[in-house]
Every structure is written in structure tokens, then in C-alpha cells.
């Protein structure tokens, strides 16, 4: 059964459709990777699911957590579900913690909110949680303030907060991008272990395809605010069908992961347009080597087996039609 089921999710701002008709499912215990370059709408999708979009952004569609639609329930109910049954780990641990509050209180806060623990019980639970995320000397760190912790430790604290109420679904928005390369690995291993122990479903937003292949079961590729391809990790990473997934793979296998930002170096032709600047039809056609006249209309998301792909000229199925001219490739 799907722990999280997203249907036709769209995010709008001032008439711009930043995320359009995104649908995917994450089953209990399953790990799904959401990949794509910056600006493809991954983080917005996550924010829309938990109902924490910034001012001026509005979401439509459906995001079912069990049998409740997160987008349809009242804000009151959403608050009850958030932090309890669904949790989100943010990208930048340096700013995600309240600088004026001790770590222990911040970790225990969700428990006090949802489980009605007393201050003391929450403090004890917080120390246990800090131990679970492998923070050395948890009792001492519970009394520290965020600025006294390194980035890696702070991200562990964020994870402790996320798992505090045993959520059914954990969303992790590039949880290691802001960290030093040396600690990225260990933080991911921890995340991997925690999710297994909790039996939670995980939606991992990432650039790092190596991580995807190790940690995840399925992959969803987003581009231009749309899902362009999805499927199992093995099939997606060995035989990508959408030219964009193909390009992402090529970029990452070419030893070109930039350690600092984690973003693939521009091995993909062109760059991601600004929001609202995507071409009509297939959003990738300006950068796509396989694009044709046909691509000016949006290809439907077609399902073949466990794979879905939205492309008129998928990689590896058939050669592009004869009608393609080189002028169609790049403007």
C-alpha cells in the first residue's frame, strides 16, 4: 500500500506553473529518489506535500498520506500530521535550527507537541534520540546551542527531530548537499539505517546518482516542474529512456561531480532556464539532442511495465525519426 501518494500536484506563483501535474507513489518501507537539476521543482514538490510553501505559492492536486489528503485537510489537521506521521529534513542544517534554543528542547519539541510529553520526559527522549543519530555525548550536546555544533552534527540533530515521532514518511531534501564531502557519506549511511529501523517510506531528493544507486529502490526524474521519467533503480540507471535522465547519468559518470555543491558540472548542454522560461511542449527540448518538431507538443507520460517516460523519442527504443534536423536541437 502506498504510504504517500501524490496525484497531479501543481504549484503556482503569480500565474507561473512551477510544478505541473506531478504524480508518484512511495510505498511503506520503500525508498524513492527524486532527481533533477536545481530549478526542476524537486524541493517545491516536497514543500507542497508538507504544506510549507512560501508566501505567494499555492498548490493544487492531491498528496495522500495513508487515507488523508494533505492538501485537502484543514491546516489544523495538517499540523497534527506534520512532524508526527510525515517529516522533512531540510537541505541546510546551518540555518534550520533555532539559534537561541538548546538542542535538547528543539529535538523534544515535536514529542511534546504530538505525544503530550512533559518537559522532563521530552528532555530524556531527546537525549535518547541524539544517541540514536550517533551524536557522541548526547547528554552534553542536548544542552548545547546550534552554533556549537558542526554542520554534520546539526544535520544529525535534524534527523533526530524528523524521526522523533516515528513518521510513516520521511522527505529528505538534499540532506548532505550543504555538508563537507567527508561527512556526507556517514550522514547518508545514518539516514539509510534510521529509515530501515523505522520502516518509514523515504523520498530522497538528491543530485547524487551514486547515492541513488546504493540507497534507493525507485527513481523519479523531474525537469521543468514535471515528472519526465520514473522506474526502478536498476532499469533507470542502466537503461534510461528519457534523454534528460540519460544526460544526468552521463554527467555523473564522467567523474564530474563537483564536490562542493554536489551538482553535476555542466556536462549537459545549456542550462536550466529560470522558472517560467521553459519552452512550451516538452520542457527539455531546447537542450535535447533528440528533439524534433513533434516535441513542441508535450509528450504524455506513458507507462511501459514499471517504467513511465514522457518523451516522443526515448533513448534506446527506436532511433529518432528521420524528420529531425539539427536546427531543432538548440536555439
Amino acid at each position: 500500500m502506498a504510504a504517500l501518494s501524490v496525484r497531479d500536484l501543481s504549484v503556482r506563483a503569480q500565474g507561473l506553473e512551477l510544478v505541473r501535474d506531478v504524480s508518484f507513489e512511495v510505498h511503506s518501507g520503500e525508498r524513492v529518489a527524486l532527481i533533477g537539476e536545481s530549478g526542476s521543482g524537486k524541493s517545491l514538490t516536497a514543500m507542497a506535500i508538507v504544506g510549507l510553501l512560501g508566501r505567494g505559492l499555492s498548490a493544487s492536486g492531491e498528496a495522500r498520506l495513508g487515507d488523508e489528503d494533505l492538501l485537502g485537510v484543514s491546516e489544523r489537521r495538517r499540523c497534527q500530521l506534520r512532524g508526527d506521521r510525515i517529516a522533512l529534513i531540510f537541505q541546510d542544517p546551518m540555518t534550520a535550527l533555532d539559534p537561541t534554543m538548546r538542542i535538547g528542547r528543539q529535538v523534544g519539541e515535536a514529542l511534546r507537541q504530538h505525544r503530550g510529553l512533559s518537559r522532563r520526559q521530552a528532555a530524556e527522549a531527546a537525549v535518547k534520540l541524539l544517541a540514536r543519530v550517533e551524536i557522541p555525548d548526547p547528554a552534553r550536546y542536548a544542552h548545547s546551542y546550534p552554533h556549537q555544533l558542526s554542520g554534520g552534527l546539526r544535520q544529525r540533530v535534524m534527523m533526530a527531530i524528523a524521526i522523533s515521532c516515528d513518521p510513516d514518511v520521511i522527505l529528505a531534501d538534499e540532506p548532505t548537499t550543504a555538508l563537507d564531502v567527508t561527512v556526507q557519506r556517514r550522514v547518508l549511511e545514518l539516514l539509510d539505517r534510521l529509515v530501515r529501523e523505522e520502516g518509514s517510506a523515504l523520498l530522497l531528493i538528491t543530485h547524487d546518482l551514486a547515492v541513488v544507486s546504493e540507497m534507493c529502490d525507485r527513481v523519479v526524474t523531474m525537469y521543468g516542474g514535471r515528472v519526465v521519467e520514473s522506474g526502478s533503480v536498476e532499469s533507470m540507471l542502466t537503461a534510461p529512456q528519457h534523454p534528460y535522465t540519460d544526460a544526468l547519468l552521463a554527467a555523473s559518470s564522467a567523474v564530474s561531480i563537483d564536490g562542493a555543491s554536489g551538482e553535476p558540472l555542466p556536462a549537459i548542454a545549456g542550462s536550466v532556464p529560470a522558472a517560467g522560461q521553459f519552452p512550451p511542449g516538452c520542457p527539455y527540448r531546447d537542450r535535447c539532442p533528440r528533439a524534433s518538431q513533434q516535441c513542441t507538443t508535450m509528450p504524455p507520460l506513458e507507462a511501459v511495465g514499471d517504467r513511465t517516460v514522457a518523451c516522443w523519442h526515448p533513448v534506446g527504443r527506436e532511433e529518432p525519426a528521420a524528420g529531425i534536423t539539427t536546427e531543432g536541437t538548440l536555439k
Partner: protein
Amino acid sequence: MVRFAAHRLGILVLSLVGASVLVFGALTLLPGSPAQVILGTQATPQSVHHLTVQLGLDKPLWQQYFDWLHGMVTGALGTSYVSQLPIGTQIWQALQVTGPLVLLGLVIGLVIAIPLGLFGALLQGRATGAVLGAIGQVGLAVPTFVGGTLLIIVFAVEFHVLPASGFPEWSHPGSALKSLLLPAISLGVVEGGIISRYLRTSVLDLLQSDYLRTARMKGLSMGQALRRHGLRNAMLPLVTVGGLELAGLIVGAIVVENVFTLPGIGTLLLTSVNNRDLLVAQDIVMFVSGTVLVLNLLVDLSYRLLDPRLAGRS
């Protein structure tokens, strides 16, 4: 923290010494003898000499300076040559007007600033928010003496509800408060405008902050998140601004007292400047600068105490 406090205290002492040298120097280095300046050009040489001795101006400079410092510290400020009243008593009486005026001004400023800044930021992007922001901007551009004059025109001249000037004794608390109301409002409008700008900025930063989003992610409602995480963080800049603006209020009071002819520190200072009662002027300038410098120190220290990020550093 202790090291920081010691360091800041050192700076305070240096600042006080610097200010005292400047203030003392301003009087001493005047062209002509101070006694001559005080008595005016019509004075006879005998009376000038008499006053010189009376003021201790025949002593060496350093001794005059230390005598004066000693007086400032012990409160034995001597007697005003012009009014023949003890300077300490005069300042003390003036403080009973200026002190309440400044506090009332701060309260009014906060009463204006907090809703303006808070709702201005919360409603940002809407017409109401823009209007609230604009009110703050306009408020801080109203000079106290202009605002005061306007208030007099409206409330004293047109409607006769509040007095335009003067101050009764505190033995009539009701009418004394009434006399302080208009001056305090004209002070408060400016300070309120300034504080509201700071507050608005810090609330806007707060609303965009990741930690507020984290709090919401835990399941806190917007109200809960703002109360538990927002208030603490927005308080920090407010303490700084409140402290600095308290200093601003004290200086503003000098002007406002003149508009409303209140017998406070500012009026005393101006009267003494105009009467060439330089001893009194010197003492008041020193007293006010000392107060402001001490306030600055307290703000810095309280900030260190409140912000855990700074508490450990020196």
C-alpha cells in the same frame, strides 16, 4: 562573558575619561578667562579676579580637572554662579521631569512600534502592510520639535484638552502626567518610527528563516512557532534598538522640553548655555553623555547574555 564585560567596561572608562577631557577642555580652552566669559565684558577686573578665585580657576589645570572629576563622582557639584543654587539639586530636580518624560516616550514609542513593525511585516505584500511600513517611515522623519508644535496646535490651541507648556509639581500627579503627555508623544512618534523599522526588518528575516520552517515542520501552528521561536529571536535586535533609542530619547528630550517649556535637563542645559552658566552646562553635558555611554554598555552586555552565539566569545 566576563572577559567581554571587562573589555567593554574598560572602553566605557576610556570613553568617560575622553568625554570628561573634552567637556572640561571646552570650558577651559575658551578664548579669554572663563570668569570673564561668565561675567561678560562689562565686569570690573576685581569681580573677574574674585570669581576666578571662587571658581578655583587660579589653580593648575590638572588640579582643576581632578577637582571637577571628584565633584562629579561624589555629587558635590558646587554652586551655580548665576542662580546661586546648588548644581546637584538643580540637576536632581530637572531629572524628575526628564526621567519620567523619557520613560513615557519609550513606552509610547513601543506602543506605536510593535504593532506597526509586527503587522507591517506579517502583512507584507498586501496594501495594509505597505501602509504600515510607510507610517513608520513617515514617523521617523517627523522632527520632535515639529511634531511637538503640531501637537500643540491641535490639542492645546484648537481643542484646549492638554496644556501647551509648563509643568506643575509632582504633588499633582494627574496634571503633571497631562503636561508630559504631548511631549512624550512627540518623542514617541519619532522613536516609534525608528523602532518599527528595525522590528519590521527583524520580523521579515524571521518569517523567511529556516528555523521557523523547521518549527512548522514539527507540527507547530504558525502562532505557536512565532511564539516559541519567533519572539526570542525578534527580541534580540529589539533590545539593542530599544537601548540605543533610549539614549536617543534622552537627547531628544533636550529639544522637546524646550518646545513645551518643561523644567527638565534640556531646559536647564539651554538656560545655562544662554546665561553663560558654564559650570552647570559642563556638568549636564557630562552627566548626559555618561548616562548614554552607560546605557550603550548595558545594551551590549544584555545582548551578549541573550544571544547564545555571542555569550561564549570575548
